[in-house]
């Protein structure tokens, strides 16, 4: 917890109260961490449920149909909650030929890192759970985790479609992580720090990174690769419903399936939020409170990603890989070079 966080004051006073009763501080720290983790998880899960609803409404709008309109009033606001409830009550099936331990473990390995990355998302000037001095590195490291979970899921399912999906997932996220990281490197170079707080404060007074010369390129790179990272059309090959049925999670049912699903939307929320952080000046903005600005920017990115998803078809695996290796990575290297030059000059 940083002192700047809104919960800082609460933490201080509760800690005083705790120690006044002669109890050791480290126990309180432990409880506090668990409570905060629970709060963050709940907030993120709620926003993910909202995102699922939003996506269904938006796709409905794009496809000239209504979308959910029964559960929870005429806008179907409780539709995803009802769906989640349904999934919770579904039978949990583990296929006979599956590798049980790996099969059970995989959804968590995908889901947990998706929550962890939110540690370094600066929702407002006073609301950043942990401003690590290696914030950017932390994001890169943690968001590389889910692919292991995806591969475990594909492998443990003992299903050819799942295996093909897992192979695609690994190949794709490995390839797209490189330009993604290089795009982040550009931001780090421009800000002169890996710390999220520094990156945000470098964009004060409307000096958003997206407005600085070589960083527009980095923004484009980040946007494309992050779409690939969250496996959305045109990059949804690991799932590819019409080809691989559901890809790596084809054998998953009930809440285990829901974990993959929620992780995907959680990740979507994260890449959009992080895009706002790195390029769109995070919570900086006039008149409105910082949180509002941050949410507006994040949702603008989310809407753009959704819009693309419901407009274009899917690429083929070799086209995807060729795109990453032949175009994005060279372009990213050039952008890094340009950014370096600009910051030296």
């Amino acid at each position, binding site marked *: 917890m940083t002192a700047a966080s809104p919960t800082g004051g609460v933490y201080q006073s509760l800690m005083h109260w705790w120690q006044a009763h002669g109890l050791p501080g480290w126990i309180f720290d432990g409880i506090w961490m668990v409570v905060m983790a629970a709060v963050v998880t709940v907030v993120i899960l709620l926003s993910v449920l909202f995102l699922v609803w939003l996506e269904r409404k938006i796709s409905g709008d794009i496809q*000239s149909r209504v979308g959910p309109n029964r559960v929870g009033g005429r806008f179907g606001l409780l539709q995803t909650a009802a769906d989640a409830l349904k999934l919770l009550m579904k039978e949990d099936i583990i296929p006979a030929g599956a590798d049980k331990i790996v099969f059970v473990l995989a959804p968590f390995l995908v889901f947990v890192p998706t929550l962890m990355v939110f540690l370094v998302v600066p929702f407002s000037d006073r609301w950043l759970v942990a401003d690590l001095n290696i914030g950017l590195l932390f994001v890169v490291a943690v968001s590389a985790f889910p692919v292991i979970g995806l591969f475990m899921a594909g492998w443990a399912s003992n299903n050819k479609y799942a295996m093909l999906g897992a192979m695609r997932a690994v190949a794709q996220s490995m390839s797209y992580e490189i330009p993604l990281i290089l795009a982040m490197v550009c931001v780090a170079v421009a800000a002169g720090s890996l710390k999220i707080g520094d990156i945000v404060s470098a964009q004060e007074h409307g000096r958003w990174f997206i407005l600085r010369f070589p960083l527009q390129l980095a923004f484009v790179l980040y946007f494309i690769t992050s779409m690939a990272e969250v496996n959305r059309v*045109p990059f949804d*090959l690991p799932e590819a419903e019409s*080809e691989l049925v559901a890809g790596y999670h084809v054998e998953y049912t009930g809440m285990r399936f829901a974990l993959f699903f929620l992780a995907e939307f959680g990740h979507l929320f994260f890449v959009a939020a992080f895009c706002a952080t790195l390029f769109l000046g995070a919570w900086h903005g006039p008149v409105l409170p910082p949180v509002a600005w941050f949410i507006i920017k994040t949702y603008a990115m989310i809407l753009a990603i959704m819009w693309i998803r419901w407009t*274009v*078809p899917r690429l083929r*695996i070799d086209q995807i890989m060729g795109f990453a290796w032949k175009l994005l990575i060279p372009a990213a290297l050039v952008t890094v070079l340009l950014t370096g030059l600009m910051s030296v000059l």
Partner: protein
Amino acid sequence: MSIGLTPTEHVVLNMGPQHPSTHGVLRLKLTLDGEVILGCDPVIGYLHRGMEKIAENRTYAQFLPYTDRIDYLSSASNNEAFVLAVERLAGIEVPERAQYLRVILLELNRIASHLVFVATFANDLAATTAFLYAFREREVIMDLFEMWTGARLTQSWIRIGGVGSDLPDGFERKAHEFCRMLGPRLDEYDGLLTGNAIFRLRTEGVGVLPPELGIDWACSGPTLRGSGVAFDLRRAEPYEVYEKLGFEVVTDAACDCMGRYRVRMEEMRQSVRIIEQCLDHLPQGEVQAKVPRALRPPAGEAYGRVESPRGEFGCYIVSDGGTSPLRLRLRTPSFFHMAALPQILRGWKIGDVIAILGSIDIVLGEMDR
């Protein structure tokens, strides 16, 4: 041993019979090296209902509704092929107005079927929005059918000797409205799909069917015309009033998925032309010839073939003078296209299987009969 020579295991992947993109209950046994297709062995027959045998135990009029269910996306074409054969066998003259009405029904059905093609093809390539757009337009046709025939999918409205009924009041106005509406909507698809860079990447040069191969494997319809062969039964062997109507036989020299797609898109525009001509020149008169209640065609044989949305749909009937056919044989285009599929799949990737399979536009009910 170098890495390049390390033997890799080939995987046999059963695509279907329960798979979102096999358009029904088709099973493709794919031999894969990674994602690359080494071989394809289609397993068909999951939707076999013994149509030909059923015909031997039904009267001619009774079998008509069965034909609707052969190719359920273009039931009018099936009716037409069967009815043509029966009428040739029994020597029945169909009134001219009925012939025009049949063409209207056939062409509306063709548009509906091609719209389903566009929809499923786009959906297979993950362009879900185009799927719903095409179904939105198809809905208008279904409403037109419902207004005229009372049924939306399996109308059985082309009857032996005529059609089920004359047009209801207001049908012509609504049909004209639809014809005016469809063109701009197709332009919208062009914007969303045809010109889309990703769509072109996925379809251009993919699944090449050389014209010779197409002819050798008895392909027909848009699948063959997409390879540049101008063979259309509406021109090659006109039935009903097609020879009086102005339309172009659409071909595309591309021979790939894109070519087959473009042929169907353009055919819809041509069908609109045909429908408008029919509506404008609709003659007055009867819509049903006098046909005996218990039809007993003289002994002999007859073949009726029509250009269904999928290709040449034929119905061959042998009669011994009884009330039901001695033997009835159905020539269904998807069956032949499926036979050609393994030839064009080899070397492509799993994602392409879906595109190529979608582009030959099969209907399992028609393939398995």
